[in-house]
């Protein structure tokens, strides 16, 4: 049984190092509370250590990534963070490390400017009041723009490696399907009807004298209720969106190709606790079902076996070690009994964890590497912790 006293350069860590050194996109997934963000940040640091120009993106509005990097906040603009890490004692980098937090509104605005057929259309959409609602409140809007942003950044040529820290949702992979869902809304019959009507006839949307029949009456009643301008604007908005449908469909297809391609690997982070393992099992199943490539399973916060302490307890009269350290004989005997039990139980916990992880591995990872990281002493949420993580992820000093 691996003792996990110090990291060794095994096959799994070598494989992970290969992904960090060669892939373009690493998507870090996992349930909440397993150390996903910390590991995403450490992998970014590792990438920069391997000489790559690396960007770590988080979608999570909680400041976990900023905290993990020892910063107070992150913005939508990629921010160089080499300095902050060096101050915290990070080993020298040969590449560059940047981080950003996706600002949903800014990302939507960027995307529109990139995608709209011309500046005028982009401006009109940005000023339309329905645009604000759609980009903020439509279910899946956040996930949609996160995917879009990942695709844009990864294919921009500005970065060697992009590490994405996915939000801790119950179904983290759902966000990959958001683009298709949003496009389905745009492709909806009602949208098409209004869009075609307005475009082909060149009519004012609410020209009641020309739009006859029930639809026309319904519109004019609605107009009295909401104000004609509101409906007019909605009509405009729908027409404007139609211009985006083609480019967005193409880009969604490209994104799907990118996620399934050789440049991308998914990393599943879990802890050995049964609820986290249950979620990891679902994630692994989903990855497989969607044909998305698994790079490695990272099991964080593994209870190490008691290692050398077991050897000590096997010695006859080992409690003398306590006496030599200044404990009175009576107290030493009492403390020895407690310590003995603590070691015995830790060994058992380590075995239980190992058995549950082995079961997950056997059934669901199909030979993908398993990287185990021990529960490190105190969970410091700052840059020092990242540095401590590095050797466990395969960043070992040259022998």
């Amino acid at each position, binding site marked *: 049984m691996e003792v996990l006293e110090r990291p060794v350069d095994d096959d799994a860590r070598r494989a992970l190092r290969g992904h960090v050194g060669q892939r373009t996109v690493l998507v870090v997934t996992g349930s909440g509370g397993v150390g996903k963000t910390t590991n995403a940040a450490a992998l970014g640091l590792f990438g920069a250590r391997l000489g790559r120009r690396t960007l770590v993106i988080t979608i999570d509005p909680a400041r976990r990534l900023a905290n993990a990097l020892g910063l107070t906040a992150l913005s939508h603009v990629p921010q160089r963070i080499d300095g902050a890490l060096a101050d915290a004692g990070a080993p020298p980098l040969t590449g560059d490390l940047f981080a950003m937090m996706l600002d949903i509104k800014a990302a939507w605005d960027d995307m529109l400017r990139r995608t709209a057929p011309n500046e005028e259309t982009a401006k009109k959409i940005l000023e339309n009041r329905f645009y604000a609602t759609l980009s903020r409140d439509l279910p899946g809007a956040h996930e949609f723009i996160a995917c879009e942003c990942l695709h844009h950044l990864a294919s921009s040529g500005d970065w060697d490696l992009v590490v994405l820290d996915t939000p801790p949702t119950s179904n983290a992979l759902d966000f990959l399907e958001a683009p298709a869902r949003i496009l389905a809304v745009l492709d909806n019959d009602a949208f098409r009807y209004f869009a075609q009507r307005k475009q082909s006839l060149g009519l004012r949307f609410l020209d009641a004298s020309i739009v006859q029949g029930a639809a026309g009456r319904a519109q004019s009643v609605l107009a009295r209720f909401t104000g004609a301008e509101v409906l007019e604007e909605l009509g405009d908005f729908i027409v404007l969106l139609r211009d985006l449908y083609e480019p967005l469909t193409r880009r969604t297809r490209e994104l799907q190709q990118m996620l399934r391609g050789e440049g991308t690997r998914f990393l599943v982070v879990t802890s050995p606790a049964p609820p986290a393992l*249950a979620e990891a099992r679902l994630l692994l199943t989903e990855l497989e079902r969607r044909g998305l490539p698994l790079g490695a399973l990272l099991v964080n916060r593994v209870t190490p076996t008691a290692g050398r302490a077991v050897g000590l307890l096997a010695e006859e009269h080992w409690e003398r070690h306590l006496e030599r350290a200044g404990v009175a004989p009576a107290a030493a005997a*009492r403390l020895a009994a407690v310590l003995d039990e603590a070691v015995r139980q830790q060994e058992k916990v380590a075995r*239980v964890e190992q058995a549950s992880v082995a079961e997950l591995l056997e059934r669901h990872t199909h030979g993908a590497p398993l990287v185990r990281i021990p529960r490190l002493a105190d969970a410091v949420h700052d840059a020092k912790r990242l540095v401590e993580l590095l050797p466990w992820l395969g960043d070992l000093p040259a022998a």
Partner: protein
Amino acid sequence: MSTPPPLLSRQLHYVCGKGGVGKSVVACALARALVRQGERVLLAQVSAPDSHGPLLGVGVVNAEVREAEPGLFVVDIDPHAAMKEYALLTLKFEALYRTVFENRLTKAFLRFVPSMNELTMQGKIWWHAVEHHYSRIVVDCPSTGHGIKLLRTAQVIADAAPVGPLAEKTKKMAELVRDPTRTAVHIVTLPEELPVNEAHDLVAEVTRTGVAPLGYAVVNQVLGPLFDDQARAALTAVRAHTHDDVALAHLLDVAERRVEREQHERTQRARARDLGLPVIELPYLLQPRLARADIERLASVLQEGA
């Protein structure tokens, strides 16, 4: 207002919680505790991989109700089997059932009718509760979200379709599930931060929707304290004098890890008590796989705690 009867004397027990907290283990232990009290118990898992069979050592549990041992009946409620049964009851003929229900389009349609699966499962539970002479039914619910969905189904359908033959049945189902003299929803959790958060969310949702009366909070896998104040003080004292005794330093690492974990566990157990439900704590048995003997041990703890 009369006080509801003691929890274990209620007829219908739903065991809910996040995936991996040990719902199946608790459901099995609860069923065994009830059998020991002389009850005639149906233990139902809901369309799950068979976990009850191995835990109880009673062979395979499937859609056929089976008396696994005196007083303990086991079943796996499969929504498709339940729907077929219900449809056959209504349609009377197997051939007609096939024409309608094995049809590809109907199948696709039924899959997308919201709550159809939950309704047939809940209906089956209700049918067992009303038509049969089980004095207790223990339902091992699917993970959090679904567990609540299952509880709410009858009410949702009853509200949506207030008349007709289906409405009559679902209304009675909803009444049974809501009845504090007959039903209890037990929340299973672990002494860890996120599972306790989830338990709080679950309690809040059940309370807010008023869908069913709450029962026990069961804190599973409690390690318990080894180190008292004296032992902790001794540890600190020894730490100052380990110097170059490497093995002893390593032993102290183990001890400090343990003390930290005990502290964390104490905090989370306190938070579990804040759920506002009577709490039962089950010991961490430190085994990779639990078996019948472990279930019996936990059943005893449940009996004492109740």
